């Protein structure tokens, strides 16, 4: 019996050693090739327009390499004001979004979990409703003093950013045991403010950063509403100035894109370095 068993094992091992290896060896290169093709196609799709934009921004009218468009950008009429307006609108939008959405999302998770679906549906509406309809309604219904202020745009941008902000926060809150953490903090004597500041918000940091970056990107790229509300933000300035100098406006777009990347990278690396520091402090790394 033992001999038979041993022989069977050897046969089985030999079969197993030979059989699966052949297809794996055949499949792997094919899989790699397809993966490479897909990556190249996707890369080309995303990178070619950026390359074309960069090339155009770094050329002079004769088609030679030049930084003239980038250098001229700050001195072009209206650019400074547009840039400053976009920054102010971004800041107000991000702050308003956080002040409104963070407590709301936490409240829904803690106290009204059954209405999460309804809230999700409501937060999708700004994507479904075209911005032109939204701004037409806003301009027709808001009081004059508010319509005269550029910060009306911030109020509308808060609505536009809501789907992204809500989803980021919702994902962040779903990843922690919110109810138990809150109850633990409360039972230890933590007030609601202390619980938010010391327990919930630090554990929501990645979600908060993500929500902020998405809001920021939305404000910096929004054209329709700003244009219809007759405020010259960066995107509106780009479109208006395009008639005068294409190189400069493309340089402005590229700088905006690079600026967003830098900002995103900074925020992500800040988050990572904080996590690493806390691990190093404890000997975890």
């Amino acid at each position, binding site marked *: 019996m033992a001999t038979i068993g041993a022989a069977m094992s050897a046969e089985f091992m030999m079969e197993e050693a030979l059989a699966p290896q052949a297809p794996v060896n055949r499949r792997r290169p094919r899989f790699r090739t397809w993966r490479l093709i897909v990556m190249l196609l996707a890369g080309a799709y995303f990178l070619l327009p950026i390359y074309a934009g960069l090339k155009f921004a770094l050329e002079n009218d004769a088609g030679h390499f030049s930084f003239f468009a980038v250098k001229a950008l700050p001195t072009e009429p209206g650019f400074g004001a547009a840039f400053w307006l976009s920054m102010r609108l971004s800041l107000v939008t991000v702050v308003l979004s956080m002040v409104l959405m963070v407590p709301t999302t936490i409240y829904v998770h803690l106290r009204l979990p059954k209405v999460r679906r309804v809230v999700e549906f409501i937060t999708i509406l700004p994507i479904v409703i075209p911005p032109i309809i939204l701004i037409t309604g806003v301009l027709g219904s808001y009081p004059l003093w508010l319509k005269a202020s550029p910060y009306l745009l911030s109020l509308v941008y808060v609505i536009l950013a809501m789907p992204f902000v809500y989803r980021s926060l919702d994902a962040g809150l779903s990843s*922690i*045991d919110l109810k*138990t*953490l809150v*109850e*633990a*903090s*409360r*039972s*230890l*004597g*933590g*007030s609601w403010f*202390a619980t938010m500041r*010391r*327990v919930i918000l*630090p*554990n929501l940091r990645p979600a908060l950063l993500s929500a902020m970056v998405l809001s920021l990107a939305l404000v910096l790229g929004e054209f329709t509403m700003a244009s219809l509300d007759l405020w010259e933000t960066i995107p509106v300035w780009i479109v208006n100035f395009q008639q005068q100098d294409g190189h400069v406006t493309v340089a402005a777009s590229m700088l905006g894109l690079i600026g967003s990347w830098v900002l995103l990278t900074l925020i992500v690396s800040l988050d990572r370095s904080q996590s690493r520091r*806390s*691990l190093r*402090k*404890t*000997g*975890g790394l």
Partner: protein
Amino acid sequence: MTQMKETSMTDSSITAGTTKGAQVELDQLVRTYGQVRALDGFSLSIAPGEFVALLGPSGCGKTTVLRVLAGFEQPDSGRVLVDGNDISDVSAQKRDMGMVFQSYSLFPNMSVINNVMFGLRMRHQGRSDSRSKAGQLLELVELSDQSTKYPHQLSGGQQQRVALARALAIEPRVLLLDEPLSALDAKVRAELRDQIRSLQQRLAITTVFVTHDQEEALSMADRVCVMSSGHIEQTATPAVLYARPTTAFVAQFVGISSRVPVETSGNEVVVFGQRCPIRTGEALSGSGHNDALLRPEDFGIDIDPNGKGFVTHKSFLGAITRLIVQVGEISVRVDVRSDQGADIELGTHVTPKVIARDVLVAPRVAAAPVEPL
């Protein structure tokens, strides 16, 4: 392990008397969720320093009691009194109750020492005082060498010990334990069980412990409160609860009981032809068809070639051997001393005999005819 624990506890400045247990009174608590009545007139009195376990199946309302006591849930009616003061409307933040959760619930963004310090800092204690006290508590739970680590760097057992230290740090009037051991493996659970009990006795802190594990409840608590459908079935010491269950639910939920259909008459019941006195318990439907609930040790057996019962299963459990004896359509579990049970083979004809001084009788759940012996 025990020696190490004792030494560290003696060295610590956290000693008995630091925390004073409170008298807790739960009075006619009612809590409903829609149509479900989670608590149905629940009343319980807990003495200062007492360790009470709330035991029951899932959905019986034991966690609701704990949450009402902690202030996380408001009862529809009824009162919660601590040291005679009605705290029903006091927020969880101001109740001074330390709670340990099933899911550890340590703050992931804080190190172990900061977790333990949290409650002290919320009470506006100075940073150095808080740190010093948190250090003592970590010593008490044998985790002083882990103080700078973060929760995700600790094992489940370590995390729960930190949670215990954190709950004790605020010197709570009542310690609430919500199934704190159920997420741990068997070995760690046994160690932590001893540690919790030892700390509770040393600090003389009133403790309410929720569990569905009867072994935990019986081994740790001074009194066990068995719950079912939002009300108390029986509250008693573990020994009384096991030996003298007053309801069919308790007899079947705590320990093992065989259910034997019987005929009752007055204060007596006939079990396998043997007359036995009825134990005082839940109201019966009067004389007639009922069930007797008997533990394996309530039975003895006579080996009898003419006996109508025969052994169908036999399990060696160390000092005792558990037999399953089939009598007609009824199966009963019988414990015998292993030295006596060694010679009993499967199929051996026997006669089960009730050796308990009285028998718990409950309304019959299934109308099965009694096989006369």
